[in-house]
């Protein structure tokens, strides 16, 4: 199978490309990147061809593409790749507006290509284990969720509203909203949020607390931020607590670690040894194309997560609950 990479603007591109390189039946067919230096370096690193021109890249012989551009360019690349009949794995958030996401889904349907949203947290072992416990009834009926996704400020285009479409709340809400939808099988009916910029001198949000309500009456809190600084022992977290009628259980995608203490500015470091969720995502995408099956995480899943994140901004601006 031949898979091309469209842009290395998002740091996940490197992890996804590494994951592709580990698969015996997959070849990285080429790399398109508007940033020539970055694209050429990546092409050299992954022993493949660099394309300066997007049309030339999409005309090349390949089955699928992985899009890791700036958020604002997801739509353009997804639409072009779909028209070129390439299956697509698109980095999250799927788009910067709900309208764009809907159009992307519609174009992929029209051209008969798979559109999968890159939510790697679904492939974290603890997150999958908790899903199994819920499905087997160990927790009883779900009453509430508590989730967090806090990390470091990625800087660069992430803090440019034009290119990212939103700051920490957009970047760090969609993962856990997706997990809550996946666990509960329900849609979010309302969002209340406070969004602000606390931790960095930047023009974009870096903190938000959200209260979500699902159509079933399940309620949830979510803490999204870029509040972690370089000296903190770990990059950040992705946690969920499920409060059920039988049991309350927590899962943390980054909990599996050893503690290393050193003399220096970062005296404590958590070194992760858990499973590689990005690799899980890539294997699933490849499997999906091979078996011509529905993606496990669809464009629609990406759309619904985006919708909740954007509702948080609206709620904070209007100081009111937003109903979806």
């Amino acid at each position: 199978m031949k898979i091309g990479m469209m842009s290395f603007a998002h740091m996940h591109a490197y992890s996804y490309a590494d994951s592709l390189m580990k698969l015996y039946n997959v070849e990285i067919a080429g790399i398109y990147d508007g940033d020539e230096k970055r694209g050429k370096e990546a092409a050299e690193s992954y022993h493949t061809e660099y394309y300066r021109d997007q049309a030339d890249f999409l005309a090349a012989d390949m089955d699928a593409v992985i899009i890791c551009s700036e958020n604002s360019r997801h739509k353009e690349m997804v639409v072009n790749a779909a028209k070129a009949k390439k299956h697509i794995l698109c980095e999250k958030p799927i788009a910067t507006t709900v309208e764009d996401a809907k159009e992307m889904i519609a174009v992929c349907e029209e051209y008969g290509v798979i559109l999968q949203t890159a939510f790697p947290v679904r492939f974290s072992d603890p997150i999958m284990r908790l899903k199994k416990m819920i499905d087997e009834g160990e927790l009883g009926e779900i009453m509430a969720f508590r989730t967090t996704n806090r990390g470091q400020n990625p800087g660069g285009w992430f803090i440019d509203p034009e290119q990212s479409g939103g700051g920490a709340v957009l970047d760090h809400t969609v993962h856990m909203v997706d997990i809550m939808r996946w666990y509960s099988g329900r849609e979010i009916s309302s969002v209340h949020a406070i969004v602000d910029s606390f931790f960095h001198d930047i023009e974009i949000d870096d903190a938000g607390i959200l209260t979500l309500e699902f159509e079933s009456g399940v309620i949830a809190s979510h803490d999204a931020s870029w509040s972690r600084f370089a000296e903190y022992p770990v990059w950040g977290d992705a946690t969920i607590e499920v409060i059920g009628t039988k049991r309350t259980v927590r899962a943390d995608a980054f909990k599996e670690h050893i503690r290393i203490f050193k003399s220096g500015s970062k005296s404590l470091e958590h070194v992760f040894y858990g499973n590689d969720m990005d690799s899980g995502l890539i294997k699933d995408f490849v499997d999906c194309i091979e078996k011509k099956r529905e993606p496990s995480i669809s464009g629609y899943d990406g759309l619904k997560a985006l919708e909740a994140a954007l509702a948080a901004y609206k709620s904070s601006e209007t100081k009111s609950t937003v109903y979806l």
Partner: protein
Amino acid sequence: MRNAVIARLNKIDRSSVSDGTVLLSPEEWRVKSAEVKPDNLFIPLESAGDYIGKGNVNVYFDLELYPFFQRIKEVILADMDSKGVLRLRRTVPKNGSESALYGDLFVLSAIAGEPEDIHVRSTNREIFPYHIIVTIRFSGGKMAHAEYTLGAGEERIEIEWSGIKTIAEFDSEEMTPIKPGGHSLLPLVYGVGDILEKSRSADEAFYEQLDTYKSLLRGGGDL
């Protein structure tokens, strides 16, 4: 001067009871109140409604009595102007009280500023466990989530402060000095001295403030 402290006895560090102070459980107080006749009475928040208009009564909030909270408070107050995210989570046994919501609002306001906006969501309270999420925007720019799960097991308190270049974390289950649990309620115990020092006089201003916070919480949604 004779003080009477009414408290759940398993929450008190008994070694902290000094001369001149009588420590009584709510049940003991009901029986012995006439004979004890204290000069000053110290009661938990859940009993405050029974003492409106009575003199020499003082009310305490458990959260600000815990030694761990004193340390967290110092961290937050170290930079009063800083913004940040405060997260408080309580797991309360089935026979516990919701009064902690009001008490916590008193305590958090003292370190984060007056609550400007409150939003409350709750699951069905007739089904245990039930969960309450309180979102608070404070006047100084700080924001908070205070969450309460009632009927989901043993008492547990978690608190987190994410400030600028400062993060403080506490979890009573993790930070317990004796494991396995069940041998001690540590770290969720407090001293009588702290009750005497940190209680608020249950005067008219106190009850007005309590009513304000109750109204804010009720106005915020599901209470």
